[in-house]
């Protein structure tokens, strides 16, 4: 692509020259410097790799855009060698690209199941193997290839006043599927609508062993702050978190083949006015009912031990549990990392101020200027740290939190299966009792009651068969779901990690630029 050749980043080979001894990367740098040109001469090829399949608007690639919200390629794309600093050691074939086009919604996760070669290619195939697929994808103007529905949640707006206020989000859908009325449409929804959707889906789909993505949690504290006023930074952050979480929630739903078919989902996306979902309120009657049900379920689980014939389920269940533990631990660690970074931000800001004061008090002009410059650089550093903290948070912490919830949903699936088994077992024991009753009646010789008993037995026999079939069906559905879930999980994590690394790389480069600008000032003191 023509644009690839524009992407010559002159400063980098130059700046990294003076630091030869710093690490083995120095050699890597000079190699990559040559590679830039090599790759550019290969049409398309590995330069943008398989990065472009699902862009909604393909803007002319604005590569050195300063916009931190830049959507990086969602999976490993081989870069044109510019910033492969991080790669030679780590993601051997997954070279990270500096930045790609912007897209509508910021920081959108790509849940797509498109382009088969992509996931595997990062770890197993070399760059050469990526060439054939990339050519068409790069040329592609259309947003989706095999992924047909694209949703975005944007524009949070506060509606109403006081304690009855709520935040309405715009849900936009873009699709090529026939079952929707239009190609693109949007509606306004509030948080309780999302919860309502989840409730409806749970009731219906859980019987089929689906893993239903859970929505983000309610937060009374957060919402109250927002109701009072949307201006302060913590409310803004809260709303942004929620918006991003709702978007991910919807994307997971629509990327699930059977959930997408559900009329409730369609209604949610299309219908202009949705009846208010009242049974999602915490203090409503329905809410209490839910709590009671949950409690009784928990008791049930403890008392009845399932006779597991298929070890696959048992093993999987263990895995899921231990994974949840690990994720929880990771989440706590990321949380503490985010907090420390925020603290670093604050401290850097204060330090910058004190440096500025020191600079002002010094009368030696060269020194004073240098100190003021240093203060400015530190200020910029604070900005960077702030962004880095946000990146850490939004990318990792939220990812981990999502998956902890998802694993909860997976466990819910297993529970469903167990309940189906219980139903079957109970039906069997009832059948047994009925047969015994029949035998007794036979022996006691009461023909009229006997007839009834026989009818009941037939009825229960059918039930038993049905429940057994249900159980098997759920079993296989759960199996499929879990496998799909794991695939999605691996992809999800990888894409988020790459996004994170790219953002970090970008911020490191800005950091270098800041310090480079400062260097002449510092030298000027002497």
């Amino acid at each position, binding site marked *: 692509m023509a644009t690839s050749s524009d992407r010559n980043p002159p400063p980098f080979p130059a700046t*990294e020259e003076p630091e030869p001894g*710093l*690490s083995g*990367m*120095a050699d890597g*740098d000079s190699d990559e410097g040559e590679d830039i040109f090599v790759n550019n001469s290969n049409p398309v090829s590995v330069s943008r790799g398989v990065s472009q399949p699902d862009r909604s608007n393909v803007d002319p690639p604005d590569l050195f855009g300063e916009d931190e919200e830049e959507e990086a390629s969602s999976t490993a794309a081989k870069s044109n060698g510019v910033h492969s*600093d991080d790669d030679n*050691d*780590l*993601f051997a074939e997954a070279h990270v690209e500096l930045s790609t086009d912007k897209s509508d919604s910021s920081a959108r996760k790509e849940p797509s199941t498109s382009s088969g070669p992509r*996931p*595997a290619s*990062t*770890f197993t195939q070399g760059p050469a193997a990526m060439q054939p697929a990339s050519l068409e994808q790069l040329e592609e103007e259309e947003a989706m290839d095999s992924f047909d529905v694209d949703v975005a949640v944007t524009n949070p707006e506060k509606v109403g006043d006081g304690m009855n206020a709520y935040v309405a989000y715009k849900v936009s859908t873009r699709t090529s599927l026939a079952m929707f009325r239009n190609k693109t449409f949007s509606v306004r929804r509030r948080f309780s609508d999302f919860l309502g959707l989840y409730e409806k889906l749970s009731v219906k789909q859980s019987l089929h062993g689906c893993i239903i993505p859970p929505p983000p949690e309610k937060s009374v504290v957060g919402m109250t702050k927002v109701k009072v006023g949307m201006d302060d930074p913590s409310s803004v952050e809260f709303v942004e978190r929620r918006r991003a979480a709702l978007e991910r929630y919807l994307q997971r739903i629509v990327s699930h083949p059977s959930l997408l078919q559900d009329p409730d989902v369609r209604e949610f996306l299309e219908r202009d006015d949705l009846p208010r979902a009242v049974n999602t309120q915490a203090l409503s009657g329905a809410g209490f009912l839910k709590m009671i049900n949950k409690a009784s379920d928990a008791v049930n689980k403890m008392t009845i031990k399932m006779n597991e014939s298929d070890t696959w389920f048992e093993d999987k269940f263990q*895995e899921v549990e231990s*994974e949840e533990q*690990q994720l929880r*631990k*990771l989440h706590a*660690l*990321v949380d*503490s*990392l985010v907090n*420390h970074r925020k*603290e*670093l931000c604050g*401290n*850097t800001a204060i*330090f910058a101020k*004190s*440096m500025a*004061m*020191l600079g002002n*008090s*010094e*009368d*030696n002009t*060269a*020194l004073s200027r*240098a*100190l003021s410059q240093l203060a400015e650089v530190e200020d910029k550093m604070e900005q960077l740290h702030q962004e880095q903290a946000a990146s850490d948070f939004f990318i990792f912490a939220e990812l981990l939190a999502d998956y902890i919830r998802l694993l909860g949903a997976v466990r819910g699936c297993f529970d469903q299966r167990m309940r189906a088994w219980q139903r079957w077992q109970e039906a069997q024991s009832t059948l047994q009792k009925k047969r015994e009753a029949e035998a007794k009646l036979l022996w006691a010789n009461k023909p009229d009651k006997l007839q009834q008993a026989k009818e009941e037995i037939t009825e229960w026999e059918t039930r038993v068969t049905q429940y057994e079939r249900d159980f098997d069906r759920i079993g296989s559905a759960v199996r499929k779901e879990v*496998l799909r879930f*794991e695939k999605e*999980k*691996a992809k999800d994590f990888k894409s988020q*990690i790459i996004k994170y*690394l790219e953002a*970090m*790389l970008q911020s*490191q*480069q800005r*950091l*270098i630029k800041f*310090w*480079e600008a*400062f*260097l002449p000032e*510092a030298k000027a*003191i*002497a």
Partner: protein
Amino acid sequence: MMEEVNEVSVLSVHGHSITVTEALKEGDALTFLIVSEKLSGTGEYPVDRTYEDFEWLQQHLFSQEAVPGIHGVIFPPLPAKAQVNASSKVLKQLGFLALGEWQPYCKALETFLRQVAAHSILSKNKAVEVFLTSSDPPGRQKVKKNIFNRLSQAVEEMRKESHKDVDEFFQTQRDHNLTLTVCSKTAAEKFLDVVLTEQKVAVACGHFSAALHLCVEPGEDPDKQAFSKTCVKLSEVFDSIKKNMMSVAENDISTLGVGLDLESRYQEAEKEMLFRRTCKLVELENARRNAEKAKPVKKAAMEEVKKATETEFKHICEVAKQEVHISSPLRVSSHLFRPAIALLGEEVGGVVSI
């Protein structure tokens, strides 16, 4: 031993070659190894000294009453005493010098010695020669008489500190110094906060990296393997982030941290010198008043006192003027220039290693 104080001697080592090579722990106390190159070029003088030895040297420098204008000297600041298991109060007082395994502290002691050796008046004191070259530890008697017992002066200090000066140059210098002292101290403290937080971030990254490493799932399943690989790679990334952060913090400490610390202690030392001069000024003005108001009986004596004080004051002002002019360029070139460059180098290195 006191006689040696007044003996003038020439330093037999290269002042700029003095190095405090390491700090050895002996129980609770630290011993410092100091090496200085002989002027004659025939070798080195390695000596070991404790903090008490440094204090001995300092006391000798302070108590050179015979040297005219000694009060006008800005005495190179000696850092506070360092202990192996120091209390939190001591650590707070030491600031940057308490970090980095005593390396910054050794650097501070080294700067002290170099400044003393480079000082035209102070280097002539025999105690310096003894300190740097004698293989036996110098005497440990506490020198009682010195001009720095300020315990009783707290209240008076406040009053005298704001005493208006007769000389515009010095008045400006005093005002300027007052601001600088506060500013540099604040800057040093805030930078210390930054560095400590950097270390915290590094530690958090390390924990995260370790936890990620434990996320590896066994199994043949390609998805599982993919996930495990991702975790391992990410763990490596965070490990290198941690290393980067730690090295940035270390570098910060050893350059800008130490620089700011020295700057603020130097400003304090200058403040003390200016204060001594101000005290002398007050003394002089009192002496003049006494001489005027004295009854004939005492007049002659008062005149004597007045003249002596005037001479002392004149000397102090001369020395002080020189000192003040010298100090600025020294500060500038050695403290902040190197740190900035070094900081930059670290950042770039950090990026490259990712």
